[in-house]
């Protein structure tokens, strides 16, 4: 018999762990009450680690449901969240696509479910490597979404997300995405915080009554989700979801600030994080793990005398329109680098479309060059990123576009085929 602990126990410690394990530790630190999971590469070690915690009695009271598909994963956490518990799961790629129906359901029911995504490219052909098309393709479901650039950020962002999502003024679900294998399967030092401190940072677990808008309680019989006529409040409910997204921007910022005060780690203003943008002439907007390496590229080019900077996009939804405008305005030319696709859109890259759209009404907006790279886990080297910056500098100085532009977008690092 495994001895079940009386309570969640965690002292502050630095562990050298995989990104997936960092996600599992974050769920444990957040004292999640119900976990439902189904294995999918490259998310698998999240669910394995959580099983280990659960089987070893380290998460007393937490229920772990091992279901038969991602559709059921989301159905189960939706059922659990409706009944008033803090829930967690993790998935990736095809798993998200399979669960798409339930993903809409969670947002429509305004359930603050937090989900880690070890992002991978959509099939066919089969692909299991870093590509954010999986999470970005859920753009209009009503889920918040953010990207992590480091192992530590995975742990930290999951904690911050519970605080944002469970705010009674917000009540939205959220994806926390990080590149498959690049972060999910590599190991780095991650600070796991003291349980007592995390408890103080996070809102307390839902009360016995559960959430303010939805519950399953025989003492308060109520119906949820029944058919509503076009003359009913369906339309208004939808408007309120959008409204919550807009209000969530301030909440993300205040939570990032509180997090920094309590744990000493800064993530910019929560929505975006600038790096050497203040005197830069040329910059890039970039997200996910490639942002971490791009910091090095910026640093190296600065040493060579180039005035370059970068904006790490942390949140895709809500999209930080104002912050992007204010930051991008600092430079003359900006590259927007996607590791994801938005086929048939203006640029082919989802974030570059967003940035272009944000800048639409801005007078004297900088030149925007959409860039796509690293799809399906294709390696993007430091050298390649430095060349991207140099190419942007050249574009800024001479107006000369790189020669391999396709329909206005630079698809950087394509194999040469005759």
């Amino acid at each position, binding site marked *: 018999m495994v001895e079940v602990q009386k309570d969640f126990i965690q002292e502050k410690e630095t562990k050298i762990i995989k990104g997936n394990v960092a996600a599992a530790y974050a769920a444990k630190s957040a004292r999640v009450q119900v976990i439902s999971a189904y294995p999918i590469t490259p998310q698998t070690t999240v669910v394995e680690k959580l099983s280990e915690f659960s089987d070893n009695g380290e998460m007393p009271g937490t229920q772990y449901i091992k279901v038969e598909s991602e559709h*059921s994963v989301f159905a189960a956490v939706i059922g659990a969240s409706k009944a008033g*518990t803090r829930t967690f799961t993790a998935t990736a790629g095809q798993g998200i696509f399979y669960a798409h129906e339930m993903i809409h359901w969670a947002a429509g029911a305004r359930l603050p479910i937090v989900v880690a995504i070890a992002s991978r490219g959509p099939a066919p052909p089969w692909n299991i490597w870093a590509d954010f098309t999986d999470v970005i393709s859920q753009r209009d479901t009503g889920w918040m979404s953010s990207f992590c650039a480091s192992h530590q950020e995975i742990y930290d962002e999951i904690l911050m997300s519970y605080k944002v999502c469970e705010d009674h003024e917000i009540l939205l679900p959220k994806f926390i995405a990080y590149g498959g294998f690049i972060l999910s399967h590599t190991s780095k030092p991650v600070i796991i915080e003291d349980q007592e401190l995390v408890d103080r940072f996070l809102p307390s677990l839902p009360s016995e009554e559960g959430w303010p808008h939805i519950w399953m309680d025989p003492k308060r019989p109520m119906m949820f989700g029944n058919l509503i006529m076009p003359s009913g409040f369906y339309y208004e409910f939808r408007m309120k979801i959008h409204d919550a997204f807009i209000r969530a921007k301030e909440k993300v910022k205040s939570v990032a600030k509180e997090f920094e005060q309590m744990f000493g780690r800064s993530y910019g203003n929560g929505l975006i994080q600038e790096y050497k943008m203040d005197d830069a002439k040329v910059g890039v907007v970039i997200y996910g793990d490639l942002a971490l390496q791009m910091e090095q590229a910026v640093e190296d080019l600065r040493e060579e005398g180039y005035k370059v900077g970068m904006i790490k996009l942390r949140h895709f939804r809500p999209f930080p329109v104002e912050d992007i405008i204010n930051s991008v305005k600092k430079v003359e030319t900006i590259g927007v680098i996607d590791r994801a696709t938005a086929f048939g859109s203006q640029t082919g890259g989802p974030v570059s479309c967003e940035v272009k759209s944000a800048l639409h009404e801005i007078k004297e907006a900088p030149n925007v060059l959409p860039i796509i790279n690293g799809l399906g886990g294709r390696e993007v080297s430091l050298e390649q990123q430095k060349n991207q910056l140099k190419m942007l500098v050249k574009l800024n100085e001479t107006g000369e576009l790189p020669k391999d532009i396709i329909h206005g977008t630079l698809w950087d690092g394509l194999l040469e085929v005759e």
Partner: protein
Amino acid sequence: MVKLKEALDSCQEELFLPGNSCCAGCGLEIALRWAMKALGPNTALVTPASCLNVVIGLWPKTAPNFPFTNMAFAAAAAAATGMEAAFKAKAYRFPNKGWDNITSLVFAGDGGTADIGIQGLSGAAERNSNILYVCYDNEAYMNTGIQRSSSTPHGAFTTTTTKGKERYKKNLPGILAAHEIPYVATCSISEPLDLYDKFKKAKSIKGCKYIHILAPCPPGWGYQSEESIEVARLAVKTGSWILYEVENGIMTLSKKSKSLLDSSKRAPLVDYLSKQKRFSQISEKDLIELKEHIEHNWERINIELSCQEQYPK
């Protein structure tokens, strides 16, 4: 079996309230009312897309006087599992408040059970999730206008089997029994006391329980609304629908079906079919095949029962 008076005395409270928008003579309504009489108010229900989604009333009106949540078509069994897990988690945080005494119930149609919902249901059964999953079987997609399901019987007309269904009714209770869950039962709305007993028993058992209720549908089957009970009763009497329980792997025929092992005791199949418009065009060939199929079902049960006699006691 519970006595009628006793059953009525113990469940004066109506939990599925009047004012719902069920058709007159709706089999589902009778099934749900009697199920809830047995289960009582400490029950939380998940229902996937089905007639039940609609007949409970348009938002914000609602007929069920107990916790009730609507769910996506394929998702009921998993959502109920999640809900049940949440009750357990709440029982841990708020002990002695009754959170671990709530019955987590699914009420789904035959499409939501035998077709789109079968994966989630099979998952819940294999995990032995502590839920009671009920299929109210009206033998087609009635909510969308009478299209075939895998639970539609051979020879029946639907809007997608315009010459009568070629294939046979899927044996869902048999599939669930093969998952070796603690309790499987079949019911008919014509036998409310039998249904009441089976729900009472299911409520008392931990783990995954499955109850399959034949619930005739006046517009879908094509008979007068006052004949629902009669039609359901004929389904049992002709041996078309067999009432039984499988408790921990042991099958027992229920009272109304017991004597029908002897095929001479069964009412003629045509008595049942001739009541329903959906069988009005049935061909001679289909009729013979349907009869043979029913005979096979009984043979299978007979074999099962005789095997059981040899089980070590």
